[in-house]
């Protein structure tokens, strides 16, 4: 017992030594672990911030693919002197036009956090505090060929920060800048987004309808199926419950309301079977509508057709909704002698969805008139009265008809190849069909995705 009591001191000393050593090892391991954890945490936060920014970027591109921001399609809030495009979008912008829906990015929404002083935040934000979350910006990419189309400059006199928040230059391109901040780590991405304009496979018929009529029995050239470049077109007639055609001129098809074979020059060929109706399906029609909206040549159903003027019919793509009152006397009527889409302008596409259009003067329309005839009208949807002329083609869906008129502009056996003398009320022009197009969304332009330094 005595000996053991004498050895208690050394045991305490050894225990202390071991404890000190263990503490030292533990402290070192803890420091290493903390450093590793901090490094891994920083890396994870940076990667998550990148993912958040990329998700916001993609969501903003999707919004642009639904509706392209142009001066012709700017929502103008009441009392706002300028265009209504938001200068930026974030989670608080939910429901605002042209902004991603907050739900689309909700899985990335980080909690509130106070970041240390000096933390790099969004360089475009006016707030001095850094807040976790996402922000997107849409900016005009400048006119085609300008340096801002090739290179995104964040700030400065030529920077995109102060540019307009829509395609003000009508170049079909905008820059989208997206910022993601997670755990006080930031990622800044940018890409150029271009509208996607697709060609329409529109059948090249000078006349595509259920039937048509001519109100003259002479030998005038009323319909000319050959254009000035020698291209010829067939005529497509569906003849469903035929309304026109006296069975005599010509007998095949009987719904061709000619009163003299020479009224169509050169001798026509009739498509067999005829082209299907409708010519454009709902998706294609929507693409045309969106393109017209983009170009500012969309006329909604709320506009009375009788108030529409010839000037409103001019444009590469004009889309008129029309309504149930847009028929007969309530339809579009173009008197006098306007030249619509006359050279050097390119031929246009005029879509009249629900209604009728009548040219009563000596107007000349260059392009294609297309009437989807959603009102299921069976009369004349398009009437070329007076001495009016369409140089291009006319296409009418359903059981509706086309009244080509009677004037033929006085030309008989017309051999004019320069259009200096009109050869008929309806003249074929193959070139009028080659540029028909629609808006098919938006996509990141190839080669234009960038991750910017955090301070840009």
């Amino acid at each position, binding site marked *: 017992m005595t000996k053991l009591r004498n050895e208690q001191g050394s045991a305490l000393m050894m225990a202390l030594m071991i404890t000190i050593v263990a503490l030292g090892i533990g402290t070192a391991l803890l420091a290493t672990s903390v450093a590793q954890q901090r490094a891994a945490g920083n890396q994870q936060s940076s990667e998550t911030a990148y993912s958040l920014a990329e998700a916001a970027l993609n969501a903003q591109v999707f919004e642009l693919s639904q509706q392209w921001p142009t001066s012709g399609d700017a929502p103008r809030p009441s009392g706002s002197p300028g265009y209504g495009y938001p200068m930026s979008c974030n989670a608080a912008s939910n429901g605002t036009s042209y902004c991603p829906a907050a739900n689309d990015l909700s899985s990335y929404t980080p909690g509130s956090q106070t970041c240390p002083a000096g933390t790099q935040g969004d360089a475009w934000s006016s707030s001095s505090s850094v807040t976790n979350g996402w922000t997107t910006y849409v900016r005009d990419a400048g006119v085609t060929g300008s340096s801002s189309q090739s290179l995104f400059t964040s700030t400065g006199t030529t920077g995109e920060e102060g540019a307009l928040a829509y395609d003000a230059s009508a170049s079909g391109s905008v820059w989208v800048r997206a910022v993601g901040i997670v755990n006080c780590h930031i990622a800044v991405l940018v890409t150029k987004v271009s509208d996607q304009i697709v060609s329409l496979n529109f059948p090249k018929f000078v006349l595509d309808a259920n039937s048509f009529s001519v109100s003259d029995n002479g030998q005038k050239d009323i319909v000319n199926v050959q254009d000035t470049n020698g291209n010829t077109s067939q005529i497509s007639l569906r003849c469903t419950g035929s309304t026109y055609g006296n069975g005599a001129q010509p007998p095949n098809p009987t719904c061709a309301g000619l009163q003299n074979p020479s009224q169509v020059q050169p001798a026509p060929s009739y498509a067999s079977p005829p082209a299907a109706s409708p010519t454009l399906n709902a998706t294609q029609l929507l693409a045309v509508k969106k393109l017209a909206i983009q170009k500012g040549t969309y006329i909604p159903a709320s506009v009375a057709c009788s108030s529409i003027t010839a000037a409103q019919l001019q444009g590469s793509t004009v889309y008129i909704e029309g309504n149930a009152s847009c028929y007969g006397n309530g339809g579009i009527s173009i008197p006098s002698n306007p030249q619509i889409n006359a050279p050097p302008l390119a031929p246009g596409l005029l879509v009249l969805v629900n209604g009728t259009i009548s040219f009563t003067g000596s107007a000349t329309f260059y392009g294609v008139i297309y009437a989807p005839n959603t009102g299921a009208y069976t009369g004349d949807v398009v009437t070329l009265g007076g001495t009016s002329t369409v140089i291009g083609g006319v296409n009418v869906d359903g059981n509706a008809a086309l009244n080509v008129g009677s004037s033929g502009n006085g030309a008989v056996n017309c051999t004019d190849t320069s259009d200096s003398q009109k050869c008929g009320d309806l003249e074929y022009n193959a070139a009028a069909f080659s540029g028909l197009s629609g808006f098919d969304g938006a996509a990141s332009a190839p080669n234009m995705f960038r991750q910017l330094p955090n301070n*840009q």
Partner: protein
Amino acid sequence: MMYARDQRGFTLIELLVAMVISMIVMGSAVAILTVILNDNRYDNLRDGAQADAQTMVDRLSRELRSASAPSAGSGGLLAKATSYDISFATVNATPGSAPTGNPANQIWVRYCLDGNDILWRQSTTPSSTTSTVPDTSACPSTSSAWVTAASSACCVELNDVTNEIGGDTTRPLFTFGPSGWSSVSQINSVQLNLYVDKNPGHRPGPRELMSGIYLRNELASPTANLTALPTTNQQGADVQLNGSLSFDPNGQVLSYQWYEGVSCPTPPSSAPSSGAIPGATTQLYDAGEFPARSQPLFALAVTNTGGLTNCNSQQVTIP
């Protein structure tokens, strides 16, 4: 007697034994503390090296994500891709005026690991977007085409990168996707595994930093699909050409060009040089009249907005 014996003190033997034990304990403690202090010092050095490496990885990742083809229509974003050497064009992150012939302000960047465990970064700003990557034969390259080491703007480097230490080839710095790629132009992703070790061969082992980068600007070729069907009408046999099954893997809009009487080049990544049918720029085309029992040949070349083309051809037998 008991009291006297309790007061007698330690014998020499006891004292020596106690001293020896104490020295062993103290020696062990000092040795362990020395190891701890050394490890702590190395830890600090490794932390510093890891921070430097992380900065390099972040920069490399950002530059790879912004990698872009020098010119439209050139598929593939990497000019060189090996396990320890990578070169590509990216956008200069430093704001400034872009050269006239290089409006996108692109720079050539090269990252390579030399035999001294140093990861080099070299860069240069070409005056033209059509330039090719400068010499990459040595690491680092001494070509004057790269910014030279004498320049303050040159050659960010990272030490203690031990991927290839001692000739070890089992730890590539760069690996590329998709799996099975056979040419650099096919690469669309880069996996980065960077090993940093301040004291190779000693515990603890190297620290590994990883990053995976998808090359979002990678351009993919479209695919041209066509059908050519003869149909009869009043004038004779007609041929309807349909290219609507053509597609672009990235959803880019395609432009169409039809050809008659020619086949596609080999490889079919470009359009025929002749035989274009004027104005045939849509998916569907009416190719006109053909005599009975003739066998006209048609080709379709589709081009995406990135400038990449794919061609396909088909021969039709007219009944």
